[in-house]
């Protein structure tokens, strides 16, 4: 399960904290402390993921990203940045990054996103129309139909999208902001628990009447779909 991650971050404290956490998760982490070095290491294309700070010495993060994409290196990139405005996030995503995480962040949030990105890379080999199963839950992305223990669940379109996203990240923590970004495609920070309300509605339809719950709350991080 261990993967190769390139961490380009000039702040030593953040870098060592991230490297330590990711190594504990079983990944091997290579570090670069400026943009040029990061670009140089990234160009061999052997990494599964690049975590890229935006404000870097010598060459800034977005320039590194543009250079990589121009060279057709499609390694998933997660941008870490203290530039937190909606415009900054859009700019980062438009430059070709796969995800954008605003500093400061919790390690749980970062880990959830890292795992989602690594997982996405894995699932690229699977055809998208493949049935998804989680325990006794069965999802058919083609007909958008959901069954649990053979019984058809009646989900609203957005509830279906939520569930499919959970299922594609089975066994991994999914945070609220990830849901807002991936399921709704909004990049602002809502001041209310609007996402939780959606998840709890989905949970009611999914788990009510069944002995074993599938959708779990992970304290301080988010949610997880697991059998």
């Amino acid at each position: 399960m261990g993967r190769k991650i390139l961490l380009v971050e000039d702040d030593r404290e953040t870098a060592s904290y991230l490297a330590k956490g990711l190594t504990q998760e079983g990944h091997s982490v290579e570090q670069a402390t400026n943009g040029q070095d990061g670009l140089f290491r990234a160009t061999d294309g052997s990494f599964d993921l690049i975590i890229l700070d935006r404000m870097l010495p010598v060459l800034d993060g977005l320039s590194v990203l543009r250079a990589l994409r121009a060279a057709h290196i499609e390694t998933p990139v997660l941008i870490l940045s203290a530039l937190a405005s909606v415009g900054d996030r859009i700019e980062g995503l438009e430059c070709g990054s796969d995800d954008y995480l605003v500093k400061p962040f919790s390690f749980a949030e970062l880990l959830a996103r890292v795992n989602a990105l690594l997982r996405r890379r894995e699932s690229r080999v699977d055809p998208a129309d493949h049935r998804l199963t989680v325990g006794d839950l069965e999802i058919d992305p083609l007909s958008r139909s959901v069954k649990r223990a053979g019984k058809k669940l009646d989900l609203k379109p957005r509830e279906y999208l939520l569930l499919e996203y959970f299922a594609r990240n089975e066994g991994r923590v999914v945070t609220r902001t990830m849901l807002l970004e991936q399921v709704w495609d909004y990049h602002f920070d809502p001041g209310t628990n609007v996402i939780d309300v959606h998840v709890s509605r989905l949970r009611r339809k999914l788990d009510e009447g069944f002995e074993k719950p599938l959708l779990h709350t992970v304290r301080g991080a988010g949610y997880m779909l697991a059998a």
Partner: protein
Amino acid sequence: MPTTLRIALLAGILALLSNLAVIGFIYERTHDEAVASLHRQVVEQSKVLTDVYRTGGKTALNEAIDDTLAYADPQTAVALISRDGGELEGNLATAPAVQSMQEGYHSAVIRLRGQPSPHLAEIVLSRLAGGEWLVSGRLVGEGLAFRATLERSLILALAVAGLLGLLCGVILAHYVSRRIGQIAAVANRISARDLSQRVPLSGAGDSFDRLGLQMNAMLDRISMLMEELRLLTDSLAHDLRSPVSRLRSAAQAAAQTSDPNEQEELLGSVVRNADSLIRILTTVLEISRSEALTGRNQFAWFDVRELAAELAEMYDPLADEQGAALRFERPDRAVPLFGHRQLLAQALSNLLENAIRYGSKGGEIDVRVQPGEKRIRIEVADRGPGIPLDRREEAVKRFGRLDSSRSDEGAGLGLALARSIAHLHDGELHLEDNRPGLRTSLEIPVHRQQAAR
């Protein structure tokens, strides 16, 4: 003051030059006038004398010459020379050689009787019927003398003009530097942090007054912005104080407790308070950026109807939980708008959250999109308590939270951010009475969009 000196010198030099031009003109004209008048006198005198000769003969002429010499000024030169040049009447000291004489107007050097040196003169030579030569003319000395007097007075005039010019320059420089000095003094006092200073106006409505007016208007605007900034800083500091102090006490308590459950609880509170701090800062930053019109490069076409539908659907369960039914009146057609989709989504979500938070008791929340000729209106209306007219402006101000007892720190910024996002789109945020309840709406003008199309 070198500037004053420069202005004075400049004015002096300009006065000198213009006087020089006038004086030069006068000099030219009077000089020509003097020469012409001399010429006229000489011709006239000669004509009178030849007429006398014609009517009265030589005897009458001799009398006339004597009369002329007796009564005329000493510059007059008259002589009658006999045919052979031997006899001479008149006041010439010597007779010119008759052989070389030609009739007509001449400039010649002659010496008058009783005078030590010869003079330049203008003369007319006439051959009389009896073969005599009549010499009649005037010494040019008279014209020269007049010219010399004129030159002297002109030089004097020039000196006076120069001095007067310099004086005018000094007065002018003094006036200008006094007016500018007033403005500069105000600027100086402002630099010394007294923004209440204003430029005094003379009331004459001149350029200085206009400059002063503009400067005063600029100062008014700066004062207003400073005041706004001060209020913002004050309220930011105030609003950050409580989460920071809560964070601090939770962290301290977590460090002191030995109960792991309590510790976890306290650390969770530390994180929550830190998060709310970050949220406040992010929102304040977002407001500043929108007000500075940053983000227009990310404008694109999108369908407002879909955006509103999506957000209404997103907030429906939350409203439901709060006991309100959220309704969206879907327009029949798409409503294209050129703008920042993400930021407008955030603005609308802020209006929705505001309505759900404060207006849910009314039981109904309506979301409407109204496409218009000139502007698109996105509206959220609740049936809650509403906001009294006199407190609406306060509600939209940054940190203008009406209910200060609430602990949700980010809430006070929601409407302020929605308004700055409206500004980013050249639009406005309106707060109106929904009779009962509050109706908030974003009005985005269409003209920009068409211009961009």
